[in-house]
């Protein structure tokens, strides 16, 4: 069953506010984690979890479910927010992020957290796993789709491109790759550290159907997901999302140093207030 398939754009925007609040709250409690990339991916993650993906929180291992691969595993707080809000895990568990025994490990652990389809955390590896899931879906004649979220920085890893060529060879039209193109990585801008050139053109050159959209426009995200939903043309899809790292919290936006730092008490209060106002 597809949950909340008719969620409106306005409802999704409200959910995105809850998602962002939950993510910064858990990172604040843990005093550790990655807020910048969690916030840049928040709108896409909201659309996927609250509208697009065919999933059942009561049956996380349902074999016909859509799969989600968080290849940029360090932004798991935003995925955990979705899982907590949907009831995969009791909401209070958000306060155990990165603690001993928590389902919410520092990076996603499929053995500890229901709703995680593959453990990630080492960059560059997730897309290959998604390709394996999508091949299995095709061979088993299942209708499920596989959604993989990549970071822009991790596209510097060669394995991403090994996986991309395989997705095209095996005609995985059941695979959708998203790149969260927030332009920052730990040591600086992607342009400074290792220029990515035109990611959309790169995926297109590998044989993907591509589109580049504003990753903070819920309208554009939903419209794009609507467009590709029923595609059975034998071509994998890649959506490059232009995003802002830290989006929704003014002092974090486009600031490299908010990659992996937790807000203090005052910063949290300001963040929650700003997020509550919605995206500008």
């Amino acid at each position, binding site marked *: 069953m597809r949950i909340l398939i008719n969620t409106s754009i306005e409802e999704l925007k409200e959910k995105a506010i809850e998602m962002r609040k939950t993510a910064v709250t858990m990172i604040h409690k843990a005093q550790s984690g990655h807020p910048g990339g969690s916030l840049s991916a928040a709108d896409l993650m909201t659309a996927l979890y609250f509208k697009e993906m065919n999933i059942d929180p009561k049956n996380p291992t349902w*074999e016909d479910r859509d*799969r989600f691969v968080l290849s940029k595993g360090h932004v798991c707080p935003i995925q955990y927010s979705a899982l907590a809000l949907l009831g995969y895990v009791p909401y209070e568990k958000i306060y155990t992020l990165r603690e001993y025994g928590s389902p919410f490990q520092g990076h996603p*652990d*499929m*053995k500890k957290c229901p709703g995680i*389809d*593959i*453990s*990630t*955390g*080492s960059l560059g*590896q*997730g*897309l*290959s*796993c*998604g*390709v*394996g*899931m*999508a*091949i*299995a*879906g095709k*061979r*088993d004649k299942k209708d499920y789709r596989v959604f993989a979220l990549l970071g822009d920085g991790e596209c510097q890893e*060669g*394995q991403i491109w*090994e*996986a991309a*060529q*395989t997705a095209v060879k*095996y005609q995985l039209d059941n695979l959708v790759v998203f790149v969260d193109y927030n332009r920052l990585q730990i040591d600086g801008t992607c342009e400074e550290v290792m220029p990515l050139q035109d990611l959309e053109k790169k995926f297109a050159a590998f044989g993907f159907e591509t589109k580049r959209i504003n990753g903070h426009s819920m309208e554009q995200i939903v419209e794009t997901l609507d467009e590709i939903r029923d595609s059975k043309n034998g071509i994998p899809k890649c959506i490059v999302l232009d995003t802002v790292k830290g989006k929704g919290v003014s002092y974090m936006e486009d600031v490299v140093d908010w990659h992996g730092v937790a807000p203090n008490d005052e910063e949290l209060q300001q963040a929650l207030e700003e997020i509550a106002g919605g995206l500008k």
Partner: protein
Amino acid sequence: MSIMEKTLDIKKATRAAFGDEILKLGKENKDIYVVDADIAKSCKTINFAKELPDQHINVGIAEQNAAGIAAGLATTGKIPFVSTYAVFGSLRMAEQIRQEACYPMLNVKIACSHGGLTPANDGGSHQAIEDMGVYRSMPNMTVIMGSDYYSTRKLVEQAAKIYGPVYLRFTRGDIPVIYDENEEFTIGKAKKLNEGKDLAIIANGDTVHLALEATRLLEKEGVSVKLLDMHTIKPIDREAVLECLEVGRLITVEDHNILNGLGSAVCEVAAEEGKGKVRRIGVQDQFGESAPYEKLLELNGITVENIINTANELLI
């Protein structure tokens, strides 16, 4: 006829055992997959690829990707065997296997030809002397090398049956057939080839037939030798090693660096027990080069003669 008397004149590569067994398993179970990285012909999975194309994936020369795809397949209930050469299967994809197979305890098998010095004339770049040690260090991993065609087939069959990551290593070249077709093997349980009380020899893989020949010669000289085929080095059959420690004098023989392989695993047990005197025969922590396989074994002292000499030193 007991194995002690059996002639060792029939020879077969254990990579062929993998190719034959995986085809049989694939026909019996449609969840068995092979993920190749271009070298299906050499790894003997080519018949699987031809006969079972819906259970076969060839990712090209991209081993890291092969590992990840196998993990993705495993999450859907498939039993993927990643097939490549041991150097690439252990080192090129080591971190992918750690992250995506061992850490999440997924049912991924890594099945590698060209173990140890067996790709002899390919040179040092292709001789995997560290592979079993690499995988022995990873939690949840089982590490196996069969000693002949039939034992390898049985161990591949068992690897498909147990849940969790398994590393299997095969020979490129032909090695003597030691066992009968119907001999049974259990992962994690050493195969006892001879009972003895003066000395114990523990070997695995392509060195077992050398240890067997050495045992026969020593027995002729009146030395009573206990001989084990330790096809599984992780989990090590501790009980079997303890029996050898009771004998007191131990020699380990392996076509692998003497660091981190069979010899190390046995020494760990010996040190913990504070018993036994162990001598390790294996690759002497040095890279190989292009040469005949027998020459490379000789350069490292992995020979019948050296096993006997080492035995005599221990027996003084």
